[in-house]
């Protein structure tokens, strides 16, 4: 039904645009003209970078999140402290300032340490997205793991399993059903947040739209297409998230 509403709204927008020649100028992305095709191609080819950014950042975030979440649940509070501080700290920093810091600031620090690594827009964006998202994935892991009844851990202890075995054979297989859907959902946020990479020059969807706007002076049409580009991307992901949820949500004991 979501889809129906979206189609309805877009139909209204398009009709109102096509009807009165005043406000809209679709020629800029009209697939029937050569320039229109060229422009569309320019805009749409940003998909690849956006997807690449999001997938790599999400992957790193998933691993980083687990590495942070596991010691974050230790019964030893000194083990627990660093991950908790990390989560609170990272969660508090807005994405854009963090991006500037990583892109412009981090290389300076690295250089002063004698490490000569150049952080380009691509990796700057990935590091920022992954780190800022890892705080949330860590919390998703934590709540998923902690939602498993304490009795499971106790039973595992009484049959002689150690911590690693308990996690691997008893807790994680049960928790994964509760972790995967919110984790996949979190992926949608990464996709949307990847738009920030445009400000450091990453040639993804938003950057390309911005550049075209500067040359064509048609912000309304171009940004409308941009919004639809994200919409399509997110709808495709949600579709997979839904089917994943259905699969995972089915009776846990089967």
């Amino acid at each position, binding site marked *: 039904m979501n889809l129906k509403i979206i189609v309805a709204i877009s139909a209204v927008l398009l009709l109102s645009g096509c009807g009165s020649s005043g406000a809209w100028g679709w020629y800029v992305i009209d697939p029937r003209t050569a320039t229109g095709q060229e422009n569309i191609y320019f805009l749409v080819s940003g998909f690849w970078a956006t997807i690449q950014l999001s997938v790599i950042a999400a992957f790193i975030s998933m691993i980083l999140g687990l590495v942070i979440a596991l010691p974050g649940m230790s019964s030893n509070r000194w083990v627990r402290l660093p991950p908790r501080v990390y989560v609170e700290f990272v969660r508090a920093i807005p994405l854009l300032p963090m991006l500037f810091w990583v892109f412009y600031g981090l290389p300076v620090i690295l250089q002063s340490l004698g490490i000569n690594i150049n952080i380009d827009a691509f990796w700057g964006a990935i590091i920022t997205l992954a780190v800022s998202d890892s705080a949330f994935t860590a919390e998703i892991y934590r709540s998923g793991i902690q939602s498993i*009844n304490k*009795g*499971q851990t*106790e*039973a*595992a*202890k*009484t*049959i*002689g*399993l*150690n911590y690693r*075995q308990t996690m691997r*054979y*008893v807790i994680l*297989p*049960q928790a994964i059903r509760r972790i995967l859907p919110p984790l996949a959902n979190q992926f949608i946020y990464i996709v949307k947040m990847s738009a920030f990479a445009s400000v450091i020059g990453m040639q993804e969807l938003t950057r390309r739209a911005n550049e075209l706007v500067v040359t064509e002076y048609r912000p309304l049409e171009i940004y409308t297409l941009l919004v639809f580009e994200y919409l399509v991307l997110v709808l495709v992901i949600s579709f997979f998230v839904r089917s994943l949820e259905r699969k995972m949500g089915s*009776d*846990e*004991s*089967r």
Partner: protein
Amino acid sequence: MKNDSFVITIKKLNKWYGSFHALKDIDLNVALGERIVICGPSGSGKSTLIRCINSLEQHNSGTIVVDGREMIDSKAVHAIRAEVGMVFQQFNLFPHLTILQNLTLGPMKARGLSRAEAEDRAMTYLERVRIPDQAQKKPAALSGGQQQRVAIARSLCMEPKIMLFDEPTSALDPEMISEVLDVIVDLAEDGMTMICVTHEMGFARRAADRMIFMDYGEVIETGPPNEFFDAPKSERCKLFLSQILQH
């Protein structure tokens, strides 16, 4: 009696939860093959006591020696857990594994048995608790009584010297209580050392060598079942027995 004839020796055991004194100077010796039933009002510390024996709770002071090994470090804890099986009120079976996998997990991962050996052993104990035909099902497909018998079999697969039961029948529908108690009585008759927290007094009379009555974190009264039930000494124990035997 000589000290080493006991398989469990507990001396001056104290346990606090924050400022709450849950166990107060508990002394308890358990001989090999002895069957002990612990009863007492809710909150009296019964669960806490038996959970200290396999270190699911850490005690604050006093000593616990199990099978000649004092519980002092994580190595000792590991060794002690290998000798102590535990059955919980809520069964705590692993819901994502089949019954057979529930039983083989410990022997395979903690004891290094091969799958074939572990499955062999699992089937032996499933027969012992009389449900070999359920091996391929998931726990949720079994009745409460069957699940608890699986939980008992899972513990037995580790071939422990001592079995701890924490109210093994309290979560069961009345008609399933006896099938579980029968299995425990069987074990008792085979000479398994066991400590069982329960309010099933009929079972206690049948199976116990010794009764322990706890209240407010203390052992108030202890003795053989006949004396305990027919001539309780303390007022608190009398009151408690009259209350539960009424129902």
